[in-house]
């Protein structure tokens, strides 16, 4: 790891995480075989793996949706491996912003109310919630559609609302599970741009899980997950950039400037 990382706060520290299912039955299955992983403040990490590699299980571990069978999980240096369900709910509420492949917006509920939802569980007063939700929707370019329900929005728009929702409680980490998996390439671009914007302009920490190697290249750090083990880490470009293959030193991405502009991105801009 580079020296820059050591100056930044360690947000997530996974140590030899093992996850087994159906323990004690003949169907016992070990999905994660001792995964270790560190995420630092401001990281843009991508975990790439084929289907069946244990991606989802790892994401559930990182997202504190599940307890590990073995191993240690420190968040901001605090051990959360043994936390109770309600404690985990509180940590998820405050520290993690989820973005799902299927958006998972609450049906028949406006974009604004959807973004308010995590703040509701955090006990934020109504007025403040309203205001912040409106600001976040403006940030993702959805200010015109705050009162639309999910069924009145396109997939890309729904995902933008979901990203705004992930930001609601100003989390330490945005955890995105195949965020563009259900979108066409153009809308995917818009959503990816949004992640870059959050990362570049606000210094947000992002962990993205995907099966797409192309998308993974846009992250700074790429972890490869094969059969429940992290088999390697390499640096991504941390930028949208073509042709592929060119690697750069981590966190020097801001030097790239206009070179980052690809034809694809330009097209997407026009669409907007």
């Amino acid at each position: 790891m580079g020296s820059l990382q050591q100056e930044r706060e360690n947000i997530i520290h996974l140590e030899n995480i093992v996850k087994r299912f159906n323990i004690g039955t003949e169907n016992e299955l070990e999905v994660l075989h001792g995964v270790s992983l560190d995420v630092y403040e401001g990281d843009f990490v991508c975990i790439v793996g084929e289907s069946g590699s244990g991606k989802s299980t790892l994401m559930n571990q990182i997202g504190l949706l599940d307890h590990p069978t073995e191993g240690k999980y420190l968040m901001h240096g605090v051990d959360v491996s043994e936390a109770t369900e309600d404690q985990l709910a509180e940590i998820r509420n405050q520290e993690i912003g989820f973005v799902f492949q299927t958006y998972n917006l609450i049906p028949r509920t406006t974009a604004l109310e959807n973004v308010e939802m995590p703040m509701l569980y955090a006990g934020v007063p109504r007025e403040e919630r309203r205001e912040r939700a409106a600001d976040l929707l403006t940030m993702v370019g959805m200010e015109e559609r705050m009162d639309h329900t999910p069924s009145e929005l396109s997939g890309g728009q729904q995902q933008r609302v979901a990203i705004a929702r992930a930001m609601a409680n100003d989390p330490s980490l945005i955890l995105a599970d195949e965020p563009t998996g259900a979108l066409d390439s153009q809308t995917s671009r818009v959503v990816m741009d949004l992640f870059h914007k959050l990362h570049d302009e606000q210094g947000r920490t992002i962990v993205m899980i995907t099966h797409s190697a192309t998308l993974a290249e846009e992250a700074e750090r790429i972890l490869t997950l094969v059969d429940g083990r992290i088999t390697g880490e390499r640096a991504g470009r941390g930028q949208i950039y073509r042709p592929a293959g060119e690697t750069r030193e981590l966190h020097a991405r801001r030097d790239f400037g206009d070179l980052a502009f690809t034809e694809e991105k330009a097209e997407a801009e026009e669409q907007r």
Partner: protein
Amino acid sequence: MFLENIRLALHSLGANKLRTFLTMLGIMIGVGAVVAIETIGAGQTKQMEEQFAGNGVNNIQIYMWSENYDEDAPQLSFTQDMMKKFVNKFGDHIEAIEMDAYGNSGKAYLDAAKQDETYANFYQQGVNNGAFTVENVKLKEGRTFTGDELNNASNAAVVSDKFVDNMWGGDYAGAIGRSFTADFGNDQTASYTVVGVYTYQIDAQSLRSMDQKDIKSMSTPMFVPYKNVTQSPYLDLSGYPDGYDPFAITYFTLQAKQGEDVVQLATSMQDYMQSMFSADQNVTVESFSNKQMVDEVKASMQQQTTTISLIAAIALLVGGIGVMNIMTVTITERTREIGTRKAMGAKRRAIRQQFIIEAVVMCVIGGMIGTIGGLIGGIIGCRLMHYSIAVPMDSIALAIAVSLAIGIFFGYYPANRAAKMDPIEALRYE
């Protein structure tokens, strides 16, 4: 959070209006039926209370009968001597004792030739002045009887205002001192002079079922001095054994003074009068008070209410199961939503509260609609049965409270199931 959940509940119930309505129907029918029946019951009670309000709850009736009744044996009754002793003993507790002897019924008119136009029907009642107090007869004009009239069995009459309406066109003051012919049938007529006019109290229920013609031909009591009946020259005792007194006292009514324990007093009076008869006379004395009757009617209504409540409880149970069923379906349908909420930091309590409130809101709205429907139905029922109309506020409050309880009770299980869902499986649910 609580208010948010209510808003959320209204929102999601509104999203599925038909289903919500059908689910509410069970609660609506259950609550509606109870409120309707309670409204009718309250009307009935109010009616009864109105009737007794005029009839004094302080009244006590003492009556007797003999087991070994024999036509030839001397007649058994409360003798003058017994009555004197009774008054000596209980006089301090008594406001008035009523003496009454039923005379004949008949038709009164002024002019025999025009008796088809100007007439009034009556039934003759020989009374003492105590009867006016006990029966709560209110004089509009004139007076009750003088001592002379009572002693001399005079042909003096206290007639009803209805009687005066028919005879003298409602001139109550002018009727005092006037005479009329009382025709008892069989060519038996006598002339009576009006000394007083009383207000005839007709209960609201009877009045509602009568038309103008009925009111005109209605027969009302004509009070005359007690002896005027018992010593009537027209008294025909030919069918009775020798020495039989048709006016022997086998029962009498009295009014206890205000503040007396009526039920207790009635028992003492009963025991005292019983002690006047020897065992071999085989006489039973009993007492009866209006207070007792009111208590009994109230008790029987209470019983009725309990029975109805049981039936209603079954209806509400069925309704409640309907709510539980639909909540279970709702929760299954919204599994992903629950998973998402949990991922976003909703604790078990928050999820549980959300769905319990949804069930409660559904039940309470159903209960309110049921209450309104039941009230309307009950009032229509009261109208049809000529009851007074009373709104049973306590039953309404209870109905709403029960709806709330049903919501909590039947909402708890599905809500708890939602609260305990594993967020990972819930998120993955298709």
